Structures are given as C-alpha cells and as structure tokens.
C-alpha cells in the first residue's frame, strides 16, 4: 500500500501542512530545499525500476520519507503499546476482577476492590505512610540539596569533587545502599549507635520500632537523593545573572536579603522541577523499603508502591494489586497535571 504513496504528492501535502507546527522553524526551512532532491531520487529509481526490478522498487519504498518515518518509530511505538498503553487499560480491567493467578478465569466483581480499599483502615494507613514518607523524603532531600548547592556555589576549592561525591549515591543501587544502611542502623554493632554515643545519646531502635522505621527509610532516601537536588540547584544558581546580585548590593541588601530577594525567586522553575521530580521519585520508591523493612514493622513503612507489590505478588491478589496500582497512577497523574497547570500559568504571567 505504501508503494502507491507517491513521494511528490505526499511531500507537498505535508510540507505545507506540518511545517509550521514544528518547534524551531528551521525544520520547515530545511525540509523544502531537500524536497526536490527526494523527487529527483524518486524519479531516478522509477526509471531504473524497469531495469533492476525488485531491488529498486524496494529502494524506492525505502527512500520514501514516510515509509522511513514509520520504520523508525515503529519499534518504539509497538513496545510502548505493548508494555505501557495496553497494560494501563488491562490494569483497569484487572482492578475490576478477582483473581489469584491460578484459576483459569477471572471473576468480574465491579468496583468491589476499590470499595475494599477505601473502606479499609489498612489502606488509609498506607496512604498516610505514603504522605509522611513523601513529605519527609522530598522535604529533606530538596532542602538539604539546596543548602549543599548554595555551599558549593561559593568559590571554594575542591567543590567539583565534593559535588561529584554527593551526587554519587543517586546512581548506586537502592538495594545495595539499603543493605549498607541496615548495617549502620544495627542497634548493637551499628555505626550510628557509636556516633550517637559520642554525643551521649542512646541509639533509637531504628528499624524495629514502627515510627523510627519510617524515620530510617526517610533518612536513607534523603541521603541517597539529596545529590540530585543539589546538582540541579547548582546549575540553576550558576544561571542567575550576576548583575542582579550587584544591583541588590547597591541597594544595601545583606546576604539573607539577597537570598530571599534574588536567589529564591530566580530559582522559580528549578524549585518546581526539583519538587515534582522528587515527589514522583518518592512515590516510586520501592527498593529501599523492600530491603530495609519489607514494609514493616506492622506495616509501618508500607507505602503505596510497596502495598501494590504486596497485594499482587505476596498475597497473590491480582485484583486488589491492580486497584492499588490505579490509585498510585491517579496520584502520580494528579501531581503531573498540577505541575503542568502551574507551569502553564507561570509562563502566562512571566
């Protein structure tokens, strides 16, 4: 069917229609000069078709821009459809069924799974844990990241290696990092017990106490991820025009005033990016919790993603797992939509 797609016709149609829509008008500008060229090529191959038959017909097909476009995007598109878009719909369906992975058929039970979730104290505890974990982890990582960035923005020696140093843990396996911290948290032989001992404080029961366990996983998340916020804030700080500081200084602003009058507002979009990325990252935070606490003790560190995993793959309750996953998806979508709305408003008023 694509053979009939005369390149000359399709080009003129798309050339006028789509050119303006592309970001960067250069797209259109460059597309046109190459147009006649493709035409010449196509003409050449058509003439040659008579001689070399099959091969040149294949070449013509292949040279046609639209065929090539399809060939280029096909693998990605097929994979996305199979492993992202379709599963989302499939997940919606699964959340309306009851299935233990073994029976040949899934029972359609309507909204029962959702009724179970929302009418269940356990689920609300999970939501509360997720909220506390997100606030603690995002707040910690973002504020410490900003402070580190402010420090590393000073003209101090060794700041580049220190920047690398604090960024390194973001790249390391969450499982490995959590195992190391499990050792550090050990209430008998752990490093933290020793260090708290230096200042005369006894070691809290860390992972054995429900409340301390939540603090522990937050500490590990913050330690692992503050470097990400720091690196991005640092890039943002270096992009603030120096003359703004100069002007503020001429007006007699001290360091704190300069921070709140210049630095903070100038970081506007960066704050936003860091916050949203971190919130989405915390909501997907599975490896730390699975390794350090396995959601315990007594579900105290079970966040939404761990709950989803638990329902699906430990309790083998596909329907409930799927419905919890839908709640997770809804929360993440809400964060993304709010981000989009706010950033849109920003650009309007800017």
């Amino acid at each position, binding site marked *: 069917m694509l053979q009939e797609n005369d390149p000359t016709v399709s080009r003129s149609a798309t050339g006028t229609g789509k050119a303006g829509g592309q970001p960067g008008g250069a797209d259109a500008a460059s597309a046109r000069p190459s147009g006649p060229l493709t035409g010449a090529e196509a003409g050449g191959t058509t003439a040659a078709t008579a001689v070399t038959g099959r091969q040149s017909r294949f070449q013509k097909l292949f040279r046609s821009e639209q065929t090539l*476009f399809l060939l280029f995007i096909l693998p990605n598109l097929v994979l996305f459809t199979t492993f992202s878009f379709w599963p989302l719909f499939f997940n919606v369906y699964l959340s309306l069924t009851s299935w233990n992975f073994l029976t040949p058929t899934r029972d359609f039970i309507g909204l029962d799974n959702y009724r179970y979730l929302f009418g269940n104290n356990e689920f609300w505890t999970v939501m509360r844990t997720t909220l506390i974990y997100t606030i603690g982890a995002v707040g910690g990582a973002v504020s410490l990241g900003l402070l580190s960035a402010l420090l590393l923005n000073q003209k101090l020696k060794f700041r580049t290696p220190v920047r690398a140093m604090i*960024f390194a843990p973001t790249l390391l396996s969450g499982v490995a990092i959590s195992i190391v911290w499990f050792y550090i948290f050990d209430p008998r032989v752990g490093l933290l017990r020793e260090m708290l001992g230096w200042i005369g404080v006894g070691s809290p029961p860390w992972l054995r106490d429900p409340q301390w366990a939540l603090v522990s996983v937050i500490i590990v998340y913050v330690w692992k991820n503050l470097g990400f916020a720091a690196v991005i804030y640092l890039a943002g700080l270096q992009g603030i025009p120096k003359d703004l500081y100069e002007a503020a200084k001429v007006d007699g602003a001290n360091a704190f005033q300069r921070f709140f009058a210049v630095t903070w507002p100038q970081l506007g979009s960066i704050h936003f990016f860091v916050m949203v990325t971190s919130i989405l990252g915390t909501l997907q935070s599975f490896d730390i919790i699975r390794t350090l606490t396995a959601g315990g003790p007594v579900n105290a560190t079970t966040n939404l993603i761990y709950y989803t995993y638990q329902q699906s793959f430990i309790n083998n309750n596909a329907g409930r797992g799927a419905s919890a996953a839908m709640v997770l998806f809804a929360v993440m979508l809400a964060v993304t939509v709010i981000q989009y709305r706010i950033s849109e408003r920003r650009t309007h008023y800017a």
Partner: protein
Amino acid sequence: MPSRNPLAAARTGYRAWADRQRHLGIAASAPTGPSASPAGDDISHPKPSLLSRLPFDRLLGYALMLILTAVMIVPLYWMVSGAFKEYAEIRAIPPVWIPQAWQNPFGPDALGFGNFVEAWNAAPFGRFYINTIIITLAGTSGELINGCLCAYAFAFLRFPFKTVIFVIILMALMIPGEVTTLPNYISIGSTLRSITSNLLGVEVSGINTYWGIFLPAVSTAYGTFLIRQAFLGLPREVLEAARLEGAGHLRLLWDMVIPMARPVLITYALISAVAHWNAYLWPLVVTRTQEMRPLTVGISYLFDTEGNTNYGVVMAATCFVVLPLILVFIWAQKFIIDGIASGATKG
C-alpha cells in the same frame, strides 16, 4: 568524525560548525570557568564585603564542606571496610574503624578477601554478573537505537500528524513502570502462554527469560525527547549540504547526526545503563530461578538469608554491585552530572 564521509562540502560545513561550537563552548562556559573567575568573584564577593575580607567565612565554608563530604562518604567507607572485617571485628563494640586486614599490609592475610570469597561462593555471583551485564547491554543499546531512530524521524522526517504521534509517545512518560508491573507480568506470562499454545501449539512465556526482563524497558519516551532536542540543535546547513550531495537518511543519521550529537548520546547511554544496572522491581517479579537473577535481586536474596548475622559477607556482596558503578562514575562523572544538570535547566 565524519572522516569516512566523502562529501567534501558537508565536511567543510561540519568543520566550520565544530569551530563555532568550540567558540560558543568557551564563551558559554566562561562564567563558571577559571578565565572569568576574577570578574565573577568581584561581583559575588566584592572586596569590601565581610564575606571575603574575613577568612572566617571561608573557613566555615570548608568546615561545612567537610561535614557534607563525611556524611556522604562514611556510609560508603563503612561498606568497603565492613567487607574486609572478620566476624569478630563486625561484632566488636565499639566498632572497628580500620579492619585488622588493612593495619598490617604486609602480614600473612594482608588482603583479607575472605568475605569476598565467601560471598562469591554463597550465591552464584558470576552468573548474577553475566545476567546484569546482558540486561544492561540489551536494555541500553535498545533504548539508544530506539531513541536515535525515533528522534531522527521526529526531528527531520515529514509525516502527517507528526506532532500528534510525538505527543502520544510522550504520554508514555506518564505511565510509570511500577503501575504496569502487574499487567506486564500477566501479559508476558499467562496471556502469552495461552495465545501461543492456541496459535502455535507451543507455550512461550517471558517469565524467567532475558527478553522478559529487558524487553519492557527497551522503549524510551524520555530518550526520544532528549535526543530529538539534541538533533534539532544541530546545524541545518551542514545536514542540508549533505542531503544535496545525495546522502540518504540512514547515511545522514549514521555519518553526520549521530557523531555530531555524541555528547548527548553518551550522557543518555550512561544514565540508561545505570538505570538498567540498578533495576529491581521488575527483575524481582519476573525471575524465578537463581540462575536468571541480576545482581540487585541476587544480593537482596542473599541479604534475606544471611541478613544481620553475617555483615562482612553481605558487605562484600554489596561491593560487587556498587563498585562497578563507582568506577564508571569516576570515569564519566562530568558527562553524567552535566547532562543531568543541563537537561533540567534547559527543559
């Protein structure tokens, strides 16, 4: 880089562009580079201000930097040193800071690799490495190929409703892998099994296979977006010149576009490789046997069994996972950090 390219006009164009880039590069990096530091210093810390007149501030800065470094490095030191501690040293109170094995570097068991040997024998780490490497290579190259092809199509080829298709691909960014874990597990497991047994008479399943682990992670919306941005920033004149000389699209992509966008591609490849190396949830769910587990899943099972009884061995196993990444990071930190920072500030 396009030295094999016989297209003289394009090559000259490329050189001119590269020169200009170099100029721009110098100009662009000037505010942070050493060349401009006197000027920058003047503005941010003018001589009469307290900030630079008193060494106190500078000392405070260094002290804070030291604390920050200590907080970040001590846990990693604890991991490496723990891997060299003997059982008695692990259980010692107060804890041992420098393992016995390091204190006498020329002693009989100077190296103290006992924990590493024990860890290596406690679980098939050789196999875990092979699995992780296969998954990382397949996943990263898949993402790169998909990203480059897709980005080229969206940046340079014309197609009706191209923007709409692009937005559809970007929508995949909103569907995190955590949400699709369960349906994907069912799709490549029981669904695929029943489809293939009905159609072909053989049962095919992705559970506990390499392709089952990496295939769902091979498509890339983020990569398409990032690489497309890089491609759109390339000099049009050069590519046009090459087109006029009769270069086909594949040739253009391979000989011109990819070499010119190399920094972005390297950064993206590194970030993608790190993600595949560390992947946990999906491999945990989809692997069934010890022989198919990657390092992350392997150590988590080792940790579940050895747990808090034998930290030395567990720390050694942790080193197996972490050290290759630390080495890669030391080698490529500039690419990774700059790539992430510029992605955020430009995007």
